């Protein structure tokens, strides 16, 4: 397998079925280091499944996925090792409700990276500061707004020093007024050079931040290009239709 050194995520011929339901029907995609790829598409198009396959939350039915040259889809690969380099943020936040904000950000550092308590806390506070939540370190998730929870979830993922971040509709569960604060964090992350795969319905974000926009439907990539290409001059009928509906 030849790997371009600049390629962070390499996906080839990815198929995924849930029983009889074929969700991904052969996806090929390369994400370069530092690239922000925004994936658009109607619900059921397989966007989330694609992300979940990337960090092994779903097993691929066929095809291969490489992250920094390591094959995720191989049985021989220690998936936990891969996941250390792949941060993921979910639509439903999934903060650990029994831990404080600080505890949420520290737990995996301590258990996976085996960092000392002191170091884990230092890094946790650093990352919480990065998402603007240093003052909420001792709050429990239930005491935070949705936007704050999602920012904690981002900090939690960042604390693991990921090489690539996956964002799975991270603003879809938020009240409209809370969406902005999360997007701001993601923007600053993108500016800092993080490799990101973002599934979202926030067209504004896609236009501003994305290096590349991918439109998916029915389990395949229908169209991809720069935001300008995809938004202003869509080629595929379904892309046009979708963008028409969204706006």
């Amino acid at each position, binding site marked *: 397998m030849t790997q371009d050194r600049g390629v962070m995520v390499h996906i080839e011929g990815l198929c995924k079925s849930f029983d009889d339901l074929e969700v991904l029907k052969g996806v090929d995609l390369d994400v370069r280091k530092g690239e922000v790829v925004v994936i658009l598409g109607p619900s059921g198009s397989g966007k989330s499944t694609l992300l979940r396959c990337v960090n092994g939350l779903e097993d691929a039915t066929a095809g291969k996925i490489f992250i920094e040259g390591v094959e995720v889809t191989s049985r021989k690969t220690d998936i936990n090792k891969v996941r250390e380099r792949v941060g993921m943020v979910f639509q*439903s936040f999934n903060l650990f409700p029994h831990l404080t904000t600080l505890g949420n950000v520290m*737990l*995996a550092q301590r258990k996976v990276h085996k960092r000392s308590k002191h170091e884990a806390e230092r890094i946790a506070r650093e990352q919480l500061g990065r998402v603007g939540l240093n003052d909420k370190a001792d709050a429990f998730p239930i005491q935070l707004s949705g936007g704050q929870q999602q920012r904690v979830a981002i900090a939690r993922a960042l604390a693991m020093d990921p090489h690539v971040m996956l964002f799975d509709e991270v603003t879809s569960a*938020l009240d409209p007024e809370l969406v902005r604060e999360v997007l701001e964090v993601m923007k600053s992350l993108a500016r800092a050079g993080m490799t990101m795969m973002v599934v979202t319905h926030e067209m504004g974000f896609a236009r501003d931040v994305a290096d590349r926009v991918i439109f998916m439907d029915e389990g395949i990539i229908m169209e991809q290009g720069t935001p300008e290409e995809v938004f202003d001059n869509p080629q595929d009928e379904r892309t046009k239709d979708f963008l028409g509906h969204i706006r």
Partner: protein
Amino acid sequence: MPETDGEDTHTMFADGRTLHMRCAAAVALLLLLVSILAPLPAVAATDIVAEASFVPITATIDVLDVSFTVPPGEFQTPVDLLIEFPPEMNAAGLRGTGMRLSDKGDTVRPPAISASEKGVTFSFTASVPPAGTVFDIQVLGLATPEQAGPVVVPVKYGEAGSLQPAGEFTIDIPKANILQRVFRGMEKTPFLHQFFSPTIIWGSLPLLWRGFQVAVLILFVSYAFGIPLGLTFAFMKMSRLAIVRIPATVAIDIIRGTPMLVQLLLVYFGITYLPAWNSLMSALGPLAEWQIYAISATQFFRAIIVLSVNSSAYMAEIFRAGIQSIHKGQLEAARSLGMSWPQAMAYVIVPQTVRRVLPTMMSEFILLFKDTSILFAVGIFELTLQARTIQAAKFNMSPYIAAAGFYLMLTVPLGRFVARLEQRLSVAETGRGGKKRGKPKGPLADKPVPEEVISATEVGLR
């Protein structure tokens, strides 16, 4: 205090045990204990405290009989007499008529005196050896008459037929208080006597307390063993491997699908046919015969095996439901951070499960406590069997009422506690994102259902 006659004078207590005396025996103290407040099993709740005053008696002749007359009145319980002798006298073969030696070497306990008898006489087979012997006679369980006031009790001694008065003592019987009068009224009402006899309930308390202790001990040990076993069953049942999952599923089905009484009889008695068990018990040696509360360790082991395994099957379902009630995003979040499955379980899933299953687990604790009662079927003297035994002896249902009280003593406060806990936890819950939009709107906005679901479907099956 007591006097002796003749040249060999002795004070009773210091050297009364010496037998070098010739003259008359000394009858020193007649101690009459009539007590209600001391929690003696033989004392009825309706008894009234009467303090007796005693007259020191100096005997001048050999004593063959001692006699006194108890006050007229109603005997609620048979009078019990206790006579203490110096051990040397027992060695000399002294026996009272109709008396038997008790376990204590120096005590003779005559047969209980029937309620109708008013006079009490001890007869000895031989004259009491001469002076210096201390007799300590206690009268226990004497119910005093209803009428208040002083009652004179004459005491005689000597040989039968020629008893001479030795003196008398007076017991002053106080007026019955309201409670005592109510209790007496209850005893005279057939229904109340049959089910709520204060005397029988009061009298059964010591044995029931013992039974309660046994039940609670078995409860705690069984529960403690049930938890790890239940967790094991739960994880086995959730396994993807059929070879692990199916045995656990079958075991849980069998345990939950058959009456615990059947399991108890089968295992408690059946296990003794297993060579492995017997060799284990003989390997334990004296430990197996070690007794606590008059129940041997082997009995305990067998009872605990049945109860803990039975309980673990129910716990397994509680744990499984609890673990599965945790949003699967929690596991995914943990795994996506690079945590292994065991790490995710240990640090993320199980801690959340514990809080969720706590109320249900406490309900299981209460259920298990009540289930200890079936141990009566194999003859373990826990609360129910103690009550049954007293009931059979007295032909009276009151011990069951008292036993029920003992059960309630634990189950009601615990039940209240569980209810409060459930309320508090359901308020503290939420905040785990989930499908809801935005922040939780209020403490109960996202109230999850796991506790209710589990208790209704899993525990309610029993």
